[in-house]
């Protein structure tokens, strides 16, 4: 009798599934459960008290939460679009350079080596209204004679955070788009030139469609770790001044650890997780479409 064996793909996937179940799935189930309780760190037995959807109901009427939600979406939209445009520009510039490609590529990757928390501290330092590089430079150049309160004014703080975010992540887009440019065949571009396309038309109808999948991979990767923004914001402003830069993650962390309202925080986290899953799934779909397009055209 032949011994019964598991099919090989199951054996091969097993380790990944086990680790992810232990570290991601079980905690998620736990937090799903506790989001239906009024659990507080200070009163451990409150975890056994079931209150149904009350946490979620409270969230849906909580203005602070929805403001933070809107601000998160706004930050992501601005940052991702800026990063995409700047990354595309950088990649095009680097690609046309005839010398020093290796050096340029290494510099391009430089921000990827910085820990997000380090990016936070670094930009907090640079935007410091008293000793920061930005204000020092502006004052020395005579552009302003007052210290600009970068991290103290709400709108300016939002701008500063966006700059930090863009600095740290533009290189992801640049690297991917650069690799796409390098993989691209020359002939279609020359053919388009011969047919009398302007530079802009060549870019729009030939180059960009080919680069799309690369841009969407970068988008997908970025949407997979959007929560990096938490580290940066936590350090730069911690949601302040007066909650003017509060995003979902800082709000959740505050609710959980400062206010010790774990059940509530977990309910918020669930809404936030659904948001990022929606973003990721969306980009995955786009990636599939762009790939199919390239496969059909080339």
């Amino acid at each position, binding site marked *: 009798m032949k011994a019964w064996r598991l099919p090989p793909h199951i054996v091969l996937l097993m380790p990944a599934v086990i680790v992810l179940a232990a570290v991601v799935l079980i905690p998620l189930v736990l937090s799903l459960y506790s989001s239906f309780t009024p659990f507080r760190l200070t009163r451990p037995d409150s975890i056994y008290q079931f209150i149904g959807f009350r946490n979620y109901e409270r969230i849906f009427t909580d203005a602070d939460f929805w403001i933070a939600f809107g601000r998160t979406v706004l930050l992501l939209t601005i940052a991702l679009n800026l990063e995409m445009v700047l990354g595309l520009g950088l990649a095009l510039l680097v690609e046309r350079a005839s010398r020093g490609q290796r050096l340029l590529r290494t510099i391009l990757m430089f921000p990827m080596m910085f820990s997000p928390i380090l990016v936070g501290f670094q930009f907090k330092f640079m935007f410091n209204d008293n000793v920061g590089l930005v204000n020092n430079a502006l004052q020395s150049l005579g552009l302003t004679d007052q210290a600009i309160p970068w991290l103290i004014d709400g709108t300016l703080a939002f701008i500063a955070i966006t700059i930090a975010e863009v600095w740290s992540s533009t290189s992801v887009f640049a690297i991917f788009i650069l690799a796409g440019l390098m993989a691209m065949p020359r002939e279609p571009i020359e053919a388009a030139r011969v047919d009398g396309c302007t530079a802009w038309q060549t870019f729009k109808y030939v180059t960009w469609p080919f680069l799309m999948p690369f841009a969407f991979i970068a988008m997908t990767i970025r949407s997979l770790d959007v929560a990096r923004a938490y580290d940066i914001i936590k350090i730069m402003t911690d949601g302040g001044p007066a909650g003017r830069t509060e995003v979902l993650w800082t709000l959740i962390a505050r609710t959980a650890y400062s206010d010790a309202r774990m059940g509530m925080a977990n309910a918020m986290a669930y809404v936030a997780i659904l948001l*990022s899953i929606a973003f990721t799934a969306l980009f995955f779909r786009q990636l599939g479409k762009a*790939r199919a397009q390239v496969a059909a055209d080339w």
Partner: protein
Amino acid sequence: MMDANRKSRIRKRLTDWALTGLLFLAMCIICLPGLWIVLNSLRPTVEIMAKPPVWIPRELSFDAYVAMFSGVGQGGIPVVQYFRNSMIIAVTSTIISLAIGMSGGYAFARYRFRFKGGWFLGLMLTRAVPGIALSLPLFFLYARVGLIDTHAGMILAYTALNIPFTIWLIDGFFRQVPKDLAEAAQIDGCTRWQAFWQVEFPLARPGIASAGIFAFLISWNEFALASQLTRSTDSKTLPVGLLDYTAEFTIDWRGMCALAVVMIIPALLLTYAVQKHLVSGLTSGAIKG
């Protein structure tokens, strides 16, 4: 006619210069924050705080580094322990997630099975759960099984964090290796296991290297989980150690810059070492998927 030619040539040269200038400017902006950190780690605090600002440093010294390594109590922080913890945790979790990623990636690249797309998306989506949302329940789980403030706990968490991305990259690489090669080796008498190690693995190595560098950088730099799951010098990592330089309302900028330099150097060396594979490694799966 001649005139029009010359005019267009001049215009072309002007755009060339403008674009090169733009590239130079962009590279400066990318480098600036890093150089600013290095510079400030070498300057005395008085000079950092000076008003009006001191642009050309008057004296440079390694005092901040000396102070940092001189141990707790003399203005230092346990940087050696932090560095050791960071290294152990990042390297071990990178190796484990590469092993698991290779087996998972191989399964996706080489076998057909039901709901393959669904499994793949499911694995990827676990990465969409942000560290901070995970840290609350994970903290309870770890507290229950005694993994708080241990290397093992951090390694496990980072391995899980890195698996989806490693599988994705490595899957793309195995797809590029033609199936026929391994089959030919099997016809020649290799077992599937031997065929994998002697034929497919060497060919996919650049991709595995680039997956490794990503896993390492993510583990080396992670903060949200580490700040909740570590307590003492037994397992605190460098990103958490940065907070040692902050007090309620003040920050020791010079010391922090010095620690930042210590943190970046290993990442820089490693990335430079494998940067050749990085670009090609990242994108091989882009078109063929």
